[in-house]
C-alpha cells in the first residue's frame, strides 16, 4: 500500500468577489492532481514558479484546505480528520523549508528547536534530560557535533542550519518528510553534502520524501518518481529515469533543454535553444 495517496486534488483561491462577498473569479492553483508516494522512496514535483508545487505540498500536510479531492496517508483520510487526530497524524509527516535561517527561531538554541516537537507531543512521556539527549543524538546523525546544540541559528552557516532543520524534522520519527526546495538557498558545494545526507537518512530510516524543486538537475539526483507540474496541473509523471531519458510531454522536454550544463556546447558554440515565451 502506498504511504501517501493523493487523488483529484484541487485548490482554488478567490481573486475577485462581488459586493455581497460572493466569489466572482478564482485562480485554480492546483488542478486535479493525483499521485502516490511509496514508503522509503522519493517522489519529486518539479515545475516553474507558480506551477502549484508548494500549494500541493501544503495541501498534503493539510496546512491549507483543499477545494476538492482527497489525501490518504497510510490508509487514513487526512482531509476528514479533526483537530486532535490530525495533530497525532502530523507526528508522522514533517516538513523542511527552503530558507533555514527564517524557519528556525533565532531566539532559541538549535538544541531546543530540535527538542521542541517532543515538548509539544511528548511532554509528559519524556524528561528534559531525555529530550536534550535526543537533540544531541540527532545533531550527530546529521553530521554536526552534539555540543552544537547550545548554538543559536545566527552562529551557524546556511548548510549547518539546513542540517538542523532536517534533525528537527526527524525528532518524532516521521514516515514522510515534505521538503520544499530544501537546498535551493545553499551553496553548490554544501548542496551536494546536504543531498547526500538526505539520501543516507532515507536508506537508514526508511523515510519517504515529497521533494519539491524547480531544479531538474537536483531532482535527477534524488528522485525515484517524478511529476512535472505546469500551471497547476501535472503534465507528466512516472519513474524519474524514464522521464529524464525520454520525456513524453513537450513541456518537460523544453524544461530539460533550458538547463545550462557544463558538458554541453560552450560559449563558442552557442547553441540555439528552444526559448519559451516569458509569460
Amino acid at each position, binding site marked *: 500500500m502506498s504511504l501517501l495517496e493523493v487523488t483529484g486534488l484541487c485548490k482554488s483561491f478567490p481573486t475577485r468577489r462581488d459586493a455581497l462577498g460572493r466569489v466572482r473569479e478564482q485562480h485554480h492553483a492546483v488542478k486535479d492532481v493525483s499521485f502516490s508516494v511509496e514508503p522509503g522512496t522519493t517522489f519529486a514535483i518539479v515545475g516553474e514558479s507558480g506551477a502549484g508545487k508548494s500549494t500541493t505540498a501544503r495541501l498534503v500536510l493539510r496546512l491549507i484546505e483543499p477545494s476538492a479531492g482527497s489525501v490518504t496517508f497510510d490508509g487514513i483520510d487526512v482531509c476528514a480528520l479533526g483537530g486532535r487526530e490530525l495533530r497525532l497524524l502530523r507526528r508522522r509527516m514533517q516538513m523542511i523549508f527552503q530558507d533555514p535561517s527564517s524557519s528556525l527561531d533565532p531566539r532559541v538554541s538549535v538544541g531546543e528547536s530540535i527538542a521542541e516537537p517532543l515538548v509539544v507531543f511528548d511532554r509528559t512521556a519524556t524528561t528534559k534530560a531525555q529530550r536534550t539527549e535526543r537533540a544531541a543524538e540527532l545533531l550527530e546523525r546529521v553530521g554536526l557535533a552534539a555540543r552544537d546544540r547550545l548554538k543559536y541559528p545566527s552562529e551557524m552557516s546556511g548548510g549547518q542550519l539546513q542540517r538542523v532543520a532536517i534533525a528537527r524534522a526527524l525528532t518524532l520519527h516521521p514516515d514522510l518528510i515534505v521538503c520544499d526546495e530544501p537546498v535551493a538557498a545553499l551553496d*553548490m*558545494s554544501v548542496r551536494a553534502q546536504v543531498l547526500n545526507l538526505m*539520501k543516507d537518512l532515507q536508506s537508514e530510516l526508511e523515510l519517504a520524501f515529497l521533494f519539491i524543486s*524547480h531544479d531538474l538537475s537536483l531532482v535527477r539526483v534524488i528522485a525515484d518518481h517524478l511529476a512535472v507540474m505546469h500551471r497547476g496541473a501535472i503534465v507528466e509523471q512516472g519513474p524519474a529515469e524514464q522521464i529524464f531519458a525520454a520525456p513524453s510531454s513537450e513541456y518537460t522536454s523544453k524544461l530539460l533543454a533550458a538547463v545550462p550544463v557544463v*558538458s*554541453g556546447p560552450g*560559449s563558442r558554440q552557442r547553441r540555439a*535553444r528552444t526559448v519559451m515565451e516569458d509569460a
Partner: protein
Amino acid sequence: MTTQASPDAVAPEVESPPRLLDVQGLTVEFRTSAGWSRAVDDVSFDVHPGETVGLVGESGCGKSVTMLSLLGLTRRANARVSGSAVFEGHDLLALSAKELPDIRGNRVGTIFQQPARSLNPAFTVGEQIAETIRHHRQVGRKEAWRRAVALLDDLSIPNAEKRAGEYPHTFSGGMCQRVMIAIALSCDPALLIADEPTTALDVTVQAAILDILRAIQDERGIAIVLVSHDLGIVNEMCDRTNIMYAGQVVEAGDTGELLAQPRHPYTEGLLQGLPENMVGGRLQAIPGNVPPLDELPDGCHFAPRCAYARAGDCDAVVPPLVLDDGRAVRCLRSDELDLVGVGAR
C-alpha cells in the same frame, strides 16, 4: 587605503590586444568587530572589448564585492579599497564621487540579481529608462521616451509602447530583468556588469535572458562581466573564467580549457560535485564549509578541504597565483596533480 592616482597618471596606452577593463591587485576590506576582514584579496583580471568574462564562486568568495567595488559602491567609512581598475583610461577606484556617475550607467551598465527589487515601484518602467538617458544625454523628454520604448521593443517585450507606461509590479521577474537590461543598455555602454542576472528566475526564463544577453553582445559588441555560481551558465556564456575562493582568484583561463582540464583542486571539486558526475548514487561533495572571512586558515585557504593538501607546505604559505600559458593557478601542487575535468569520465 585607496590609490590616489590622478586620471592623467593612468592615461591609456594602446596595447595589443586592447583591454577594456584592467583590474590589478584589487583588495577590499571591511571593518568588523574583530578588525579589518579581507573580502577581496589581490584580485586581478582583465576584459577585452566584446568578450564575456566570468567570476565564479560560492557565497562569500568575494565575487559580488569585486563588482560593487568597480562601481564605487563599496566607498564607505567601514570599507577600504586598494588596487586599480583601469577602464577606458580612467581608474575607476580613483575617480572622484563627481566623475564616477559619468561612467556608471553611461559607459558601464549593471544588472543585478533581484530585478524586481532593483526597480522603483513608484515610477513607470518607461520613466526609469528615460531618466537614465536624460541624465547622461542631452535629449528632451519625448526623445528619451521614444528611445526607452525602442529599447523595450528590442528586448522583445510585446506591446512596448503600452508596457512602457506601466509600473514594475505588473511585470514578471523575467520581464523586470529585461527592463533592467534596457536601463543598462540605454546609453550604449562598452561594458555590462551582470551580477547573478538569472539566479532568481525560472530555468526557461533564464534561458531567454541568457539568449538576450548573447544577442545584444553580438549586435553591439558589448563586453560582459558575468558573476555567477552556476558552472553551466559559465560554460554557455563566458569566453574566459575566473574561479574565486575565499576572496582570491584560485584559477583563471579560457573557459573551455578550464572546465575540460582544471588545474586547481577547488575547480575539480566543483565539477565533480555536479549531478552528472554522481558515483554510485552519491554526489561527490567537497567536504567542509567555506571558511568565514575572519577565520581564514594559514596558508592555502582551500587546504583544509582539499584532498591533495600536503601538510607542512599547503598549510604554511598562501600560494602565489602563477601564470602559465594563459592559465593562472593558485596551487603549490598544480604541476604534480592530474585533475579530472568535464567529459573525462
